[in-house]
């Protein structure tokens, strides 16, 4: 690895870490729950970016599975929080607005 690519990778790692600190600030002092949920989602995305950059620094391809895994888990967690904030339940036994009702 040349010196130039190493400097670029470390600089972008530092920038992503600074943005992660900003997201954590929003996560701690967020006035409402919705701010914290959006902050948690953005924290997952920046974590994916950090894993991609670290796998380039370590020169391995075996972390690419973890990136996709974190993407799926962040998506499922975010829609679970969103449904809990919207309806109060996450898992319904039967859909409340079926076509035969109303």
């Amino acid at each position, binding site marked *: 690895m040349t010196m130039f690519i190493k400097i670029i990778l470390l600089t972008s790692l530092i920038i992503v870490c600074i943005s992660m600190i900003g997201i954590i600030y929003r996560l701690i002092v967020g006035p409402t729950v919705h701010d914290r949920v959006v902050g948690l989602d953005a924290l997952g995305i920046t974590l994916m970016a950090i894993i991609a950059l670290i796998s380039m620094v370590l020169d391995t391809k075996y972390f690419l599975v973890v990136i996709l895994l974190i993407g799926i888990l962040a*998506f*499922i967690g975010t*829609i679970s929080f969103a449904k809990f904030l919207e*309806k109060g339940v996450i*898992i319904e*036994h039967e859909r409340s*607005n079926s076509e035969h009702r109303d």
Partner: protein
Amino acid sequence: MRKQDNDVILRSMTLVIFFIILTFSFALFFGGHYTPGGGFVGGLMTAAALILIIIAYDMKTLKEAVSIDFKKLLNVGLIFAIGMPFVSMLFGKNFFQHFHTYIDIPVFGKTSLHTAVLFDLGVYLIVVSVTLIIILTIGENE
């Protein structure tokens, strides 16, 4: 008056993302011998795909779409995980000693078949069924 909820985007996206997660879980399961992954992570991803169906739709939809009793699936997985050591004893090996052969399959060519896949299939079925039993039991709070 009941507030009408509009989950059209979530429900349409779920139908696409479900198959992507399921394909990824199969890739994790079958690539577990040479790349990261294996039965545990593949089972968790399959369970995540089914949980996505539960969240976007409801439990009745999952029971109509996947008409599997997960307690019976747990038993099948345990039979795979326990039966594999006795299979290797049938072929004159030690208890739990894995072995592999090469078989010419018409489409795939020379393929190596390993008995560790059977044990991993047991782990996969156990993880899927245990996760879904826990989630469905917690969800039944009527």
